[in-house]
């Protein structure tokens, strides 16, 4: 445990001392502030806008940072050959991967926490609240970001950072469009339908984590109303964690067989 913790903490420390993360954070702040700048709206509309744009910002920046962090922090160890020093230490290779991943999650949790805090303050200035639906929404986005990180780590266990980033982002975009692809499949012939359906089952369904506006259990989900139920939150979190772990274990297996040259 001490070993995994040491790797995780070091990963977090690296990310914090890495200036690029701050600039991404800066952009997120900018988006939220832009919500404030939307004048000429009734107060009610303004709060609505803030919540929508704020969540969109947290989502977009969370995912971008997740891909960047997931690909970069592992790749850097391989590229700069710090692994040569670390792996001959009394540490299993999987412990190294797990430690890196936990460190990335910690980094992303802090990033998303700060973004959520900024959003909360913005809402507070508008005399609105960062209420339970918002907390649930941000939580789901965090689970989504965790999944994206795991996928990025998986790809960077065997391919170049550019390709890994490309694939991870691709998975995210396709994953978010799973319901649309399903709808499309329903209109196609039997073969195309089977192929698309299978693809949709295997791909991570990331639409689950951003359900605002979607129909869940015959009702439209909205952060401006009740958002999702506790059981939805639980099962979706379970889905995200399980999918992450499977992908992470695959990454560990690949890592176990790798030559570090």
């Amino acid at each position, binding site marked *: 445990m*001490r*070993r995994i*913790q*040491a*790797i995780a903490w*070091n990963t977090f*420390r*690296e990310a914090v*001392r*890495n200036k690029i993360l701050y600039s991404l954070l800066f952009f997120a702040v900018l988006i939220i502030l832009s919500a404030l700048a939307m004048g000429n709206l009734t107060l009610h509309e303004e709060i609505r806008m803030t919540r929508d744009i704020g969540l969109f910002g947290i989502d977009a920046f969370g995912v971008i940072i997740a891909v960047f962090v997931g690909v970069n922090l592992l790749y850097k160890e391989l590229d*700069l*050959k*710090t*692994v*040569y*020093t*670390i*792996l*001959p*230490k*009394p*540490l*299993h290779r999987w412990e190294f991967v797990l430690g890196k991943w936990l460190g990335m999650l910690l980094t992303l949790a802090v990033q998303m926490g700060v973004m959520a805090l900024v959003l909360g303050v913005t809402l507070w200035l508008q005399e609105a609240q960062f209420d339970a639906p918002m907390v649930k929404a941000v939580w789901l986005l965090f689970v989504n970001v965790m999944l994206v990180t795991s996928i990025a780590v998986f790809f960077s266990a065997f391919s170049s950072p550019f390709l890994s980033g490309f694939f991870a982002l691709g998975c995210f975009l396709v994953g978010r469009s799973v319901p649309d692809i399903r709808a499309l499949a329903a209109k196609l012939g039997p073969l195309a339908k089977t192929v698309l359906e299978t693809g949709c089952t295997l791909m991570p369904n990331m639409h689950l984590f951003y359900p605002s506006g979607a129909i869940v259990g015959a009702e439209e989900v909205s952060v401006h109303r009740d958002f999702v139920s506790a059981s939805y939150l639980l099962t979706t979190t379970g889905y995200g964690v399980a999918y992450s772990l499977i992908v992470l274990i695959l990454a560990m297996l690949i890592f176990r*067989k790798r*030559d*570090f*040259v």
Partner: protein
Amino acid sequence: MSDVVLRADDLAKTFRLGFFRKRIEAVKQASFEVRRGEIFGYLGPNGSGKTTTLKMLMGLVFPSRGRAEVLGRPVPDRRAKRRLGYLPESPYFYDYLTPEEFLDLVGALFDVKRAERRARADRLIERVGLSSARGRPLRKFSKGMLQRIGIAQSLMGEPELVVLDEPMTGLDPIGRKEIRDLMLDLKREGRTVLYSTHILPDVEMTCDRVAMIFAGRIRSVGPLSQLLTARLLSTEVCLRPGAAGLPELPAGARKSENPDGLLIDLPANADVDAFLRAVLAAGARVHSLTPRRESLEDLFVREAANQDQGAA
């Protein structure tokens, strides 16, 4: 055989490169043993496969053939790694960390408790001469300083066996001497050192035994004294001839002028005793007699030449 701490048994590694899977035989055949308490030199020219061999022994690269064993266990084994220290070639460390932070991280990987980690880090920073660089991020370290912190991290786990890949690169003459002394200290503490290099004078000063690798194949393994003294190249006799002049020189001998008189270079197979008796009888004064043994450099060059012939 408990006194063997590291064993390379018929190791080979073939890399495959590029789209056509071009084969590169980085190591073709490497077998040697390192015994407890010795300083073992792993010598070879650039690109001969030293780093690749060491990486196989450290579990970074999987051998294509053969077996690697460290501290009595097949590689990689976490229990063996606990008693092992390793410095990679031209090391690069987390550049955002200070030496203290970096050593603390390494100590944690050895499951060392926090207070003990701090104490060890302090001692090692002192030992490798980096006290003045405390609190400075590694990104601001010079090449030689990085090499020093690299050696410090290899000792963080108080290892029985220390494996160093070219520990002298990037060091100035003083630094090299310090590292040589450090290796001798480690030996005195009962630790075993295996290091790769192509700096031969360092080897002559430190190593008990060596292995030499050329183009991926180990050519000779043994105590330095045995590999070298086995070969007497020639005997140099410095003398001033007497009134009777010089007797006839043995076949193959060469004569040259020298401020003290004459320098006679007798070939290895000459009968030195008979020659001496003859010149003394002729009234000469002998100033000195020096057997010229093969230096490590001679051996190195000869083995490299053999290798070229073998390859041709």
